[in-house]
């Protein structure tokens, strides 16, 4: 009986670890391209993009690098 309980505990721990290992964050950007059209020189313009967290783990934005 004790061995059976130990075995069950082992499988439960294994199941939890497997779940953690397989869960992954995922970033989805529905509209990733934006066209401003005609814009005057020497001006600042802006656009908002929506970032969606579509994985099964929390998504962390680490850095946004100008391109």
């Amino acid at each position: 009986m004790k061995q059976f309980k130990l075995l069950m505990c082992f499988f439960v721990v294994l199941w939890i670890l497997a779940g953690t290992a397989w869960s992954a964050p995922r970033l989805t950007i529905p509209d990733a391209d934006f066209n401003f059209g005609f814009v005057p020189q020497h001006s600042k313009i802006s656009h908002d993009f929506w970032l969606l967290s579509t994985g099964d783990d929390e998504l962390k934005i680490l850095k946004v690098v100008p391109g």
Partner: protein
Amino acid sequence: MEKTVIAVGDSSKLEIIFNTKTYKSKVTKRPKIQTNEGPPDKRVSITATITPRPDSTYPIRIKPYKLDMSQLSDKVIDKAEFTISNISEEKLDVEMITFSKELFDVELPESIGPGKTIKAVVKLKKDATDKSFEKSFTIELSDQYKSRFTVPVKRIVRNSTGKQASTRKLDIGK
């Protein structure tokens, strides 16, 4: 960024600011977003056709082509008027594509007849009267190219100590 940690199923807004400086013609920028998802990094893309002569665009001309709603004294400035001239030979429908809803409204006509000039106005939201910002709005026309025009909207508010509010954003084009 509204937030840098996004829960499963949640979303966040990323504001990209582009300084057109002395760029000419068509420019594309592709900022990279690094996340804990790992490589390859995802990208967003912005494209702009930067015109050194905004007073000679086609099929419309917007005057002034930049709007400044700065308030540097006690006089309240909560709107900016501008005109749109249709210099083509066809009626053009005008569609709003994007603007900063939390800061201002834009009153536009639905269409402009050929050769006509109409008045339009940007009205500041009541909650935004004490805010300094540099934003823009983008319209799209119904011509064969679906031409888009973006109008910068700037507002600087000096407080009683002469300082202005500032915001933290990603600034592209430096």
